[in-house]
């Protein structure tokens, strides 16, 4: 991936809508084009990030000591390494700037590393992960806020490869945006416009219901599915407009390795 800060990058657009300053003019303009038609995007981005916090704390409480995070972007505050200071964590991303940035942040933290990998290449991903975790490790896979940028075939291929590589007892967290009802023609048109804006920002989104995600991530086994609002108890936090302006929701799934004993 070439370094060109005049081209918007998904990770930096995401950072901008989350309120960060790790972004350039091109990223901010791309974010504005999206929020012009989808004002709830910063809300959703925050809730997605808070889901990650929630998952990190859950995994900490469950004693998971190894985390492989996919499409990590900029591992700023609140990411896995803060909630799981004693865990061995490998962050991954294809963006060289995010990787260097992450390596700077993590330099003095034992057991935390960052590798430049395109997660759509599972062989390379597993090669890098094996260097850190060894073969057949029991791990927790963070697949939050990134799976919906991957097409069906690739997503299924990555899920199968990870499942074959890691040991029973491994878990995965995944988030997926999807429609909550049948759309009217007007809503379909608006939805298509939103998707076009995301695509123009090099962030083509593949919305999927939790049921469809479960099919694609098999043989991983879905343990729990809730909307992110439910996961966070966040419904009372938000203004009604934030929910009503869109028929989209994001669901968060926790999955386990299919050979994990109950």
């Amino acid at each position, binding site marked *: 991936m070439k370094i060109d800060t005049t081209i918007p990058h998904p990770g930096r657009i995401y950072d901008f809508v989350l309120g*960060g300053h790790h972004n350039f003019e091109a990223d901010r303009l791309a974010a504005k084009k999206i929020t012009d038609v989808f004002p709830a995007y910063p809300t959703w981005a925050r809730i997605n990030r*808070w889901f990650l916090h929630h998952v990190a704390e859950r995994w900490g409480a469950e004693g998971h000591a190894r985390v492989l995070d996919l499409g990590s972007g900029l591992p700023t505050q609140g990411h896995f390494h803060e909630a799981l200071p004693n865990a061995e964590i490998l962050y991954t991303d294809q963006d060289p700037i995010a990787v260097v940035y992450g390596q*700077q942040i993590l330099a003095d933290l034992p057991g935390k590393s960052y590798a430049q990998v395109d997660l759509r290449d599972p062989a390379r991903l597993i090669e890098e992960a094996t260097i850190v975790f060894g073969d057949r490790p029991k791990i927790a896979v963070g697949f939050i806020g990134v799976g919906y940028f991957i097409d069906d075939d690739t997503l299924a291929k990555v899920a199968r490869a990870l499942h074959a590589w890691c040991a029973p007892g491994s878990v995965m967290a995944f988030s997926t945006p999807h429609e909550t009802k049948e759309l009217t023609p007007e809503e379909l048109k608006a939805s298509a416009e939103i998707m076009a804006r995301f695509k123009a920002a090099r962030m083509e989104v593949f919305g999927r219901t939790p049921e469809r995600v479960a099919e694609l991530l098999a043989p991983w086994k879905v343990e729990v599915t809730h909307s992110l609002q439910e996961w966070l108890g966040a419904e009372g936090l938000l203004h009604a407009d934030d929910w009503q302006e869109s028929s989209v929701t994001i669901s968060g799934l926790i999955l386990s390795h299919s050979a994990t004993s109950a």
Partner: protein
Amino acid sequence: MSSAIEIRADELTGPVLEALRRHALENVSTLSPVRLPDVARRLVEGLAHYAANEDAPAAEALGRQCASMGLALKSFFAAGRVLTKALSMKGETRDEAVERALLVTDFTGAAVFGIRAVVLETFAHQRGLLEQAVQEAANREHESLRRVIRELSTPVVPIADRVLLLPLVGAIDIERSSLIMERLLEAVVAHRAEIVLMDVTGVPSIEVEVAVRLFAVARSARLLGSQVIVVGLSPDFARSLVSYGVDAGDVLTLASVQRGLELAARRRAGGAASLQLR
């Protein structure tokens, strides 16, 4: 100096938390809603400390702490309004109500200095780190490209059993000549090469120091049991070597790759045979 105003945490924390929750989306994403009770508690305790001690530096430090957790000014002001209202309503006279409101104003004013400082520092810190990351990533990309170019500029090709061809194209400087030596010696060992044809047809001219090093490469290969034959010397190249006084020593030179191949075939077969080219 201390104020006689009593701060009841049990009465104030709940309303402050509600205000913070209503403005949860204003905060930096690092401040998850699950952490808001902790922020509410800190704010009320901070106000109680200020009421007792008028300790402005402590209020500023509290502002810094909360901002570091991700609390935005807008959320903080919302909490401040709730505190002002709740506290002033407890005043029994108008003057008491005003005094209580002023206490909160002074407290929030001091805390805002801390919040503002963190916001500015965070901006500068994040932008600085990002600039560094961009520079470092560009350096890595540049180095990676240089490595690829160097690799491509020095191909070592096995062309027959134990015979290697090293076609050199373009200008050769000291750095590249070092790379040639490194790559060639590695290949000699890896392929157990007996003969290496170093083709300099594509080398337009050469510095004396570099020419000396290339012949040194040939002699190093000899120590590993391989003979380097320099082929494709142009008349200009040859004249340069003579004028510089470069001694080719026992390194064999031939006019073309074809002549080199013929010689290699004879050497390998111990007579007039042709090479089985790969």
